[in-house]
């Protein structure tokens, strides 16, 4: 998948590296901004309170 992407990109190797780094950074940023907060809300938080039950 990544290998195929590497071969398909019509740039010199150094530019491909930059493209890959930018792509990875974009995915991580998107995760931090939108995906991770949603997952955080969906997962059960570690309860810090005492309650009857």
């Amino acid at each position, binding site marked *: 998948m990544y*290998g195929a992407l590497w071969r398909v990109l019509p740039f010199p190797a150094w530019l491909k590296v930059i493209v890959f780094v930018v792509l990875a950074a974009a995915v991580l940023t998107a995760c931090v901004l939108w995906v991770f907060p949603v997952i955080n*809300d969906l997962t059960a938080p570690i309860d810090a309170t005492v309650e009857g039950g």
Partner: protein
Amino acid sequence: MTVELSRVERRRAERRRPRVTVVGVLGELLITGGVLVMAFLGWQLWLNNVISSSEQKTEATQASEQWSMSDKGEAVTPAPVERADPGAPQVDIAPGNAEHFANVIIPRFGADYTIPIREGVGVKDVLAYGVGHYPDTQMPGDVGNVALAAHRTGWGEPFRKIVDLQVGDNIYVETEAGWYQYVYRSLEYVMPTGVGVLNPVPQVADAVPTDRILTLTSCNPITTAAERIIAYAVYETWYPRAGGPPAEIAAVAQVAAAG
């Protein structure tokens, strides 16, 4: 020789194989997923805490400014060590759910440690933004038990360092009225159902309180929720807002004034 030949053959066979295979893509996707899960954990346990706790400090500081009305950059004068008896502490009426009505200031947790306290212990509306005040427990300064809860892992983890407290450490609760000084006394470990710690006299049912207690609750062991860790502090005195903050936390108040 035969080994060499078979090696060459294997290489040829590899070259004939399609470059993009289902298993190959699946493997790469799984590796990517694994990296993202690690990234999530890093975010949840570190980055998000840095951000959340900084936001909480800013919010607490802004509230302090508002209560002081000293948002013009005026220096806040700390209360003198020798001062007149402030008398019985002012006790406010409990605010509405999720209302930010106080800050908790614990110098042991950091020189700039001030975190908002909201009414209630809702996971989404209160504890995600700092410290919660158990409804139906007493208000700061009152005779009985002021019970607070906060996360020890994640969501800014305000009580992360709860085991660092040492006997005699001061815990301040700041409200619009002023600063209530409590002195840390002891830790206790209870099961998650141990609601006795919230009693006006902790762990004693139906007793008539005479002391002013502050109770902090969080999860235990750290990063899990099998038990609860409880920290008790006892009321010492209070500092009406007009008289200035206690010298020990003047730095926090100064930041508020300069902010």
